[in-house]
């Protein structure tokens, strides 16, 4: 139990998927204008990542490994992820039309969010158990949501600040992202095992 808790903490904070592994930077920059859509995006991505980790584990251990089809890994993983994202899109469109409008193009783009495929491939590469890969994916997705929320909150406040014209907009966001990344590097000092 403690091992899983530590795994959750280490994937969410120490090995944060956005700020330490630099995966999933497109929604990190794209959907962080306000907290509401950042939260929606984070939750949708969390759902997709967790589901994709489970589905790709089943694929890896029931199809790819027994039949020696390792060369199909990326192909099948992308297929499963794309189907999951389509499903999430339908659910969001049905249950939260406002969120569907706010997320816009970024919702179908979860398919190409490299964090999703990256985590699925990492769990396959490290030959984790089913539960461990689930916790690994869920923890990483929580870290993604957390960073997206922090970044969106900071950007909401920065939108009201007076900044020199040369820094306004994207440049300031990049500087902010680098500072946030530096802050998360501080977690590297924690060692659990």
């Amino acid at each position, binding site marked *: 139990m403690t091992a899983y808790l530590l795994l959750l903490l280490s994937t969410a904070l120490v090995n944060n998927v956005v700020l330490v592994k630099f995966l999933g930077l497109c929604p990190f920059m794209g959907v962080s204008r306000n907290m509401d859509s950042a939260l929606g995006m984070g939750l949708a991505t969390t759902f997709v990542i967790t589901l994709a980790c489970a589905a790709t584990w089943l694929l890896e251990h029931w199809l790819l490994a027994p039949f020696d089809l390792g060369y199909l890994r990326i192909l099948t993983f992308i297929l499963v992820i794309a*189907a999951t994202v389509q*499903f999430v899109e339908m659910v969001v469109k049905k249950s939260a039309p406002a969120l569907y409008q706010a997320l816009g193009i970024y919702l179908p783009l979860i398919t190409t969010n490299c964090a999703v495929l990256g985590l699925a491939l990492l769990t396959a590469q490290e030959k984790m158990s089913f539960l461990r890969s689930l916790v690994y994916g869920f923890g990483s997705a929580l870290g993604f949501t957390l960073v997206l929320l922090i970044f969106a909150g900071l950007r909401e406040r920065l939108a009201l600040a007076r900044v020199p014209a040369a820094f306004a907009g994207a440049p300031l966001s990049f500087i902010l992202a680098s500072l946030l990344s530096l802050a998360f590097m501080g977690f590297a000092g924690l060692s659990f095992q």
Partner: protein
Amino acid sequence: MWLAIFSLTLLGTLLGLALGLAAKRFHVEASSIVAEIEALMPGSNCGQCGFAGCPRAAAAIADGSAPVTVCPPGGKALAQMLAARLGISIDLTSVADEGPQIAIVAEDICIGCCRCSKVCPTDAIVGAAKQIHNVIREACTGCGNCIDRCPTEALLLQPLPVTVQHWVWPKPATVVIALAV
């Protein structure tokens, strides 16, 4: 190889079936009136109405939060069509109607700064940096986005010049009177 083909086919079929079932389960009825209004709008997403593009404006018109006269490029003709479709009567005297207009570049003062071509929603303005720009008549919707951008006031909205391509025989006078009555 056959195993790979078979497994991918099976996977695709299963996922397709699952998605098909989910699509039925989570089906959302699209509002037909919004789609109909959107089809009537110019569709160049110029933003002069204050909404983010024609689809948003169509949605606002459909739920009544925007008047049918909201679209400047559409002018009187569009307002009439929308009012007829929605079954409401409108006062058209306030709608400016100079007929169809397009932007025209005054070639003697254009400095070729390219600012106008960047804001054109239909890519109707051609020209490179430090080259005199020109407007493609067939593509221009007369939205007027480029007028304010021009630093030398070289762009003007003018009534669509009558050319052989779109000159039409004037309608007989009696029909006009019948419509007015």
